[in-house]
């Protein structure tokens, strides 16, 4: 599992490693005992079966020890959940809407100021799309950006966000259920029609972070990737100003892509779940 690049994404990584370690240790003990039993207590080595069939002390011990381990794990996990659920104090809001089979990003607010008409669709890049057709004859290995294979994980227009900023995402969907997942951010959140889920991230390092839809959403479920481009704050502000300026011009092509979808308003009540 990736360590991730946000202030929170270390939580699942850390829990994964601790839980894996615990499981490996228990596994070695249990399977070790089993293999010793299998070699020592073979009939072919003349082993004679003993008669005992319970031992209360032993049974209490191996009920209690797992409980203690579980309490420790639960304590660690609860901390991660509490910080995850706290979406307060965000400096920016982005609305994410899942459609069959593309994502829409609307920039709602930045540093307390409402943003108007910055929003766009983001879908699978053309090169991947051509390559992924049945028997296209194109080799997925050749789909590259800067020497890095981006087959099925590149989009025409990435979500651009600033680093070092607590960004609140409000996530919903226009048709069926999708799930917005960028492993480097440390979580996925279902995009559900009629429901607005809120969650947050705070990215530490600039970079391009890639992910995919994680909830089966129909035939092209495997072909709706996500790219988050994290840039320094100054670059982001410049980019945002450009987008706003573009949106003001009466350019028909830009206007149609920036048009807000009729469904699921941005200011719909956020599901109570992540308020506290």
């Amino acid at each position, binding site marked *: 599992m990736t360590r991730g690049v946000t202030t929170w994404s270390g939580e699942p990584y850390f829990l*994964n490693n601790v839980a894996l370690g615990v499981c490996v240790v228990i596994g070695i003990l249990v399977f070790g005992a089993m293999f010793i039993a299998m070699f020592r207590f073979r009939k072919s080595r003349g082993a004679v079966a003993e008669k005992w069939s319970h*031992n209360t002390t032993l049974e209490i011990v191996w009920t209690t020890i797992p409980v203690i381990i579980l309490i420790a794990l639960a304590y660690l996990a609860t901390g*991660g959940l509490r910080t995850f659920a706290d979406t307060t104090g965000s400096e920016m809001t982005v609305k994410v809407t899942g459609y069959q089979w593309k994502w829409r990003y609307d920039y709602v607010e930045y540093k307390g100021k409402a943003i108007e008409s910055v929003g766009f669709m983001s879908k699978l890049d053309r090169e991947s799309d051509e390559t992924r057709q049945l*028997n296209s004859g194109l080799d997925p290995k050749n789909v590259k950006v800067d020497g890095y294979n981006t087959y099925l994980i590149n989009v025409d227009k990435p979500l651009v966000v600033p680093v070092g900023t607590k960004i609140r995402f409000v996530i919903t969907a226009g048709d069926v259920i999708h799930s917005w997942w960028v492993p480097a951010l440390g979580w996925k959140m279902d995009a559900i*029609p009629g*429901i607005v889920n809120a969650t947050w991230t705070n990215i530490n390092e600039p970079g391009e972070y890639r992910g995919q839809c994680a*909830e*089966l959403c129909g035939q092209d479920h*495997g072909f709706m990737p996500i790219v988050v481009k994290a840039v320094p704050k100054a670059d982001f502000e410049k980019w945002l100003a450009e987008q706003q300026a573009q949106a003001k011009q009466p350019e028909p092509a830009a206007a149609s892509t920036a048009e807000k979808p009729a469904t699921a308003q941005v200011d719909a009540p956020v599901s109570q779940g992540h308020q506290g």
Partner: protein
Amino acid sequence: MAHDATHDHHDDHHGAPKNFFVRWCMSTNHKDIGTLYLVFSLLMFFIGGSFAMVIRAELFKPGLQLVQPYFFNEMTTMHALVMIFGAVMPAFVGLGNWMIPLMIGAPDMALPRMNNLSFWILPFAFALLLSTLFLPGGGPAGGWTMYPPLSLQGDSVAYLVFAVHLMGISSIMGAINIIATILNMRAPGMDLLKMPVFVWSWLITAFLLIAVMPVLAGAVTMLLTDKYFGTSFFNAAGGGDPVLFQHIFWFFGHPEVYIMILPAFGLVSEIIPTFARKPIFGYKAMVFAIASIAFLSFIVWAHHMFAVGLPLGGEIFFMYATMLIAVPTGVKVFNWVSTMWGGSMTFETPMLFAIAFVILFTIGGFSGLMLALAPADFQYHDTYFVVAHFHYVLVTGAIFAIIAATYYWLPKWTGHMYSETWGKIHFWNSVIWVNVLFFPQHFLGLAGMPRRIPDYNVAFANFNMISSIGGFLFGASQLIFVGVVLHCVFFSKKKAPDRVWEGAKGLEWTVPSPAPYHTFELPPVIHDDELAHGHIED
């Protein structure tokens, strides 16, 4: 011999009917119906398996080579439905039908005609379900979980819903029959706490079935009316809630996964003591652990939904409840190991599969514990890590237990020994290839590959290719199993003794091999030292 006292002499004049149709289609005999269930389950195992082969072939390398994405989704959906409702569940009902009356000293199931009906519904249910693949619009492609609104986009909703209704009716009738048999038909002296663990596991499973199959029926009926009658149970635009379906579905779905594993616990608890020649360790703890797991299964459903945006309190509750399951499950694993400890073991094919079950199911349990940790699940959820997890508990768990039980009782059913050599060849091929198949899927999930996708980035190529190779060879290995079973039924010359295994205990070994058409027409006399779990007095 015990069977001289218990076994009637007039079998000859009311043995199995000679007419094929009368014997198999109109049967009310628990053994014949058990056989029907097992044969049906094997057939479905191969149909479901062929769907899996399509999936693994398409995922063999990046790029789409064989099928369109929509058909791929039909395959994943049908693979799950056929394997769960067609292969695993009927196999357990078949084993229960065959063995529960023999294990508790009953002449037959309590409700023999209903037994016939509950089996013969199944072929129709699956004909309905599988026919959708040949109809315009294709089969269901929204996943076996049938989440709306996606599942409602398909054209086969009505077929799917009615097939699920039929399977549910069949399961409920089977469960009623098993409960009625166990509670009413035990031979005098076969107290509840003297029953074999397998019988206990089925008693508890049957209650789970009766509790949750109606819930599934309700959920799919709401899908049906949403699709065709304009209701809006799950339609947000009409005031409904798509997440409500998930809550109802998983309230069924989580007990359902234990329906598929508790009888396997029972089977392994029969087989390990036999080949360790030592009574099961902690009989009461084993029974109590099964009951606790069954209870917990009702209060953990939302751990399948950590990513839907549950409130913090909900996430915490379901995480804690889920983690608790590790305790009784751990007790079971420790008890199996303790049963082996100090025994006098031999390693015939059933024992090999049972040992593989304990190890590989435990690995599935470990990944289950990891998945229970909600913050980590935000990463694991809906990835190949989950796919690896549930195949470890279902294939190397449930299916390995079913295969172990088949080898264990096959000589009792047929009166002949199977080929031990070929059984072992089957075992080693299965256990090696199943790990080649599923272990790399853990890595794929951790590396970020979502499940249910027909194509993937080249970064996932190597592990997918390994997994596919393992899949093809695991699939092919199961043909050996069919060969061994056919050989044993029709060609084996080696007669099986009544007590097939040296260390075998329990009433089923007191009747002749093959088990006569009617057994225990007079209740047997129970000798406590004959029972599978040895000392039960405190």
